[in-house]
């Protein structure tokens, strides 16, 4: 078999599995070292099966795990939300599954997750004191995220609102590129975007806003949090949008990019459905992806030489705060019949060799501070990304409160789904911004009502 060509188009969803895949293939050949001994369970477990649903466990990782844990067999299911719901409804959910921060409260508040505190306390591989603050998105108690027991842990995270820019596109049009740790605001970003568009009219996408809007609500939530405002009242009983001037202003800011055909979304689509490959190819000037996108630069010499990660812009009148919005990780089911075996898998993947391998490839920031010295620094872009990351790190702390009434399984919550549904019509001017927001508000409130009943 020949190697796959480097410029193969990867779909966005295929890409979302990226981190795991690369980690898996890098791990091949160097496995079963003495370190693995640490991962072998101390007490003998009855032969048992652990069901995992998610993408990151490659065949190599499964073999590696089963070789080190002969008492546990792994059943890995591809992510399929229909199957997940059926398993949930039947009272037989997967033992462990992959998720993102905004989805955790819905399960935690309904008693569907296993409290992992006792396991963390007893663990030799993972020490709570070593965990980065992003892991606190998997803590939940009494309607509040960031406190109480740990229900899971990030497999990797990122200050997602930091901005990748193509320096070659900037220079070609004579615009100064901000430095990797320069303080800048969303107004600066808008000015730069306008200039880029003006001086380079053939450029189809200037800025990818919030991962093609799939994270639009989290994006706005960070902006609002920096000025002490929120999308939701304390009890999360509704979304405050059209009567919330701060929220309207934040949404209007993002909407302006769509109106001018500068963003990437249903109103101005590309073939891949996400901006990654086009950014690497130099067809997108800026994308607000965060540190994990560094992984995409591996082996891409031209992109690596012309790409720079900038700090998260600051919302006007706001203060700097943690720009983390995804925090992809794992949780363990509260209904698992083999909590110990499930934990063994969890602990091995999160604290064993796979975690160390992952830390070195740039697809996301490790969950443990002790793994930071493994961050890649061979190329200039890797060193730049690390610098920006360390600049953002002091702000790291749970700042967002996701709505536990918004239930769902996809990356985009009801708000983003509604936004994506109407943005095309609104950007064409067939729907005024106020009516657009009214529709998003109505759709979201219906979703919240459903969540409240359940």
């Amino acid at each position, binding site marked *: *078999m*020949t*190697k*796959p*060509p480097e410029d*193969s188009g*990867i779909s966005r969803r*295929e890409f979302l*599995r*990226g981190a*795991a*895949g*690369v980690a*898996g*293939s890098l791990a*091949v050949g160097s496995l079963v070292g003495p370190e693995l001994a640490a991962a072998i369970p101390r007490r003998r477990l009855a032969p048992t099966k652990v*069901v995992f649903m998610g*993408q990151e466990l*490659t*065949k*190599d990782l499964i073999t590696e795990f089963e070789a080190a844990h002969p008492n546990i067999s792994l*059943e890995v*299911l*591809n992510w*399929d939300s*229909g*199957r997940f719901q*059926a398993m949930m*409804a*039947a*009272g*037989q959910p997967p033992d462990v599954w992959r998720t993102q921060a905004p989805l955790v409260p819905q399960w935690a508040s309904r008693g569907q997750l296993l409290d992992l505190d006792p396991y963390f306390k007893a663990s030799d591989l993972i020490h709570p004191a070593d965990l980065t603050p992003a892991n606190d998105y998997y803590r939940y108690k009494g309607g509040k995220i960031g406190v109480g027991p740990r229900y899971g842990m990030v497999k990797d995270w990122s200050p997602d609102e930091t901005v990748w820019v193509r320096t070659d596109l900037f220079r070609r049009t004579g615009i100064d590129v901000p430095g990797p740790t320069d303080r800048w605001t969303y107004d600066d970003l808008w000015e730069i975007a306008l200039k880029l568009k003006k001086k380079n009219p053939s450029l189809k996408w200037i800025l990818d806003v919030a991962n093609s809007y799939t994270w639009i609500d989290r994006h706005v939530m960070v902006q609002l949090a920096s000025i002490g405002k929120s999308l939701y009242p304390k009890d999360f009983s509704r979304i405050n949008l059209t009567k919330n001037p701060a929220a309207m202003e934040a949404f209007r800011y993002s909407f302006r990019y769509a109106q001018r055909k500068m963003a990437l979304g249903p109103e101005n689509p590309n073939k891949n459905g996400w901006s990654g490959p086009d950014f690497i190819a130099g067809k997108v000037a800026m994308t607000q992806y965060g540190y994990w996108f560094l992984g995409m630069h591996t082996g891409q010499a031209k992109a690596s030489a012309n790409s720079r990660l900038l700090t998260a812009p600051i919302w006007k009148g706001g203060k700097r705060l943690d720009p983390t919005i995804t925090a992809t990780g794992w949780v363990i089911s509260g209904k698992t019949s083999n909590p110990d075996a499930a934990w063994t898998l969890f602990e091995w993947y999160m604290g064993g060799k796979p975690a160390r391998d992952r830390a070195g490839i740039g697809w996301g920031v490790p969950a443990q501070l002790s793994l930071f010295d493994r961050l890649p620094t061979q190329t200039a872009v890797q060193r730049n990304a690390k610098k920006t990351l360390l600049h953002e790190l002091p702000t790291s702390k749970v700042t967002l409160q996701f709505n536990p009434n918004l239930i769902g399984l996809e990356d985009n919550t009801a708000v983003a789904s509604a936004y994506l549904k109407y943005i095309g019509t609104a950007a064409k001017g067939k729907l005024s911004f106020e009516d657009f927001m009214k529709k998003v508000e109505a759709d979201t409130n219906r979703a919240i009502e459903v969540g409240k009943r359940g």
Partner: protein
Amino acid sequence: MTVAAEAAPVRRRRRRTPMQFALRRALDALVLVLAVVFLAPIVWGFLGSLREVYAGLTGPAIPSPAHWDNYSYAWSGEFAFSHYLWNTVVLTLIATVPAVMTSALAGYAFARLRARGRNTFFIFVLGTTFIPVAVVFIPFFWVVVKLGMYSTRWPWLIWGISGSAYLIFLFRQFYASFPTELDDAAAIDGCGHLRTFLHVYLPNSAAPLAVAFMLLGTGWWGEYIYATLLLPDQLVPLGVKINVGYYDPGQQFTLVPVTLAASILFMLPPILAFFALQKKLARGIVTTGVKG
């Protein structure tokens, strides 16, 4: 072509005018074009299954050299193909064999037995086919869960035992056209209804049985959604596994040629069954007939 000779309609020989001769040729050409259109997808899928593993679908139309090793990778590379093939066989058999039997029995009852409520029930049988999948599947899912049959093959057996409305209709049509003299002979011999059915009707039902096995069997062979929603990984049929696709060891790229090779392997058993049964199949549909 014995099949052609056998099934060609008997028509009076007529002398052909040049116009009619031209029409014949045009018809031959048309049928050839249509055959190419109908076969092209299958041939294209087959050609795709022989391409270089990372090439996707690019390259010359006819891949050279042909990568037959895609088939061995499809068989053993990603998962135990034979294990899931066996699952598919089991699910198909337990859902199809009882269904064909009970449908034939019910079709016979509707065609030959007089009883109060017969017509009402026949309307119910036809009515069930109009009920959308979603409506019955949602609550049926809960029934399955409540009965402890989630992640077992029992639902397939239930689907099997309860038969199929379409097949009941088919058998009813077939048995309604059966010569009644057979009944009389059986009655004189002192046969009960069940024995009449088993000894007189069933042995003479090869054609509709072939139709029934083929129609229902191919349906269950490729069934996909129920299996993903109800079965654990070790019991799912091949379709569920193949649909995930084949990936390179780093899980970054779909190996399109291998996935196509698996699709071809997956469709071989029903195609072979179809070739084996096709004579009876054509006759079965012809003789069972349809009336709205």
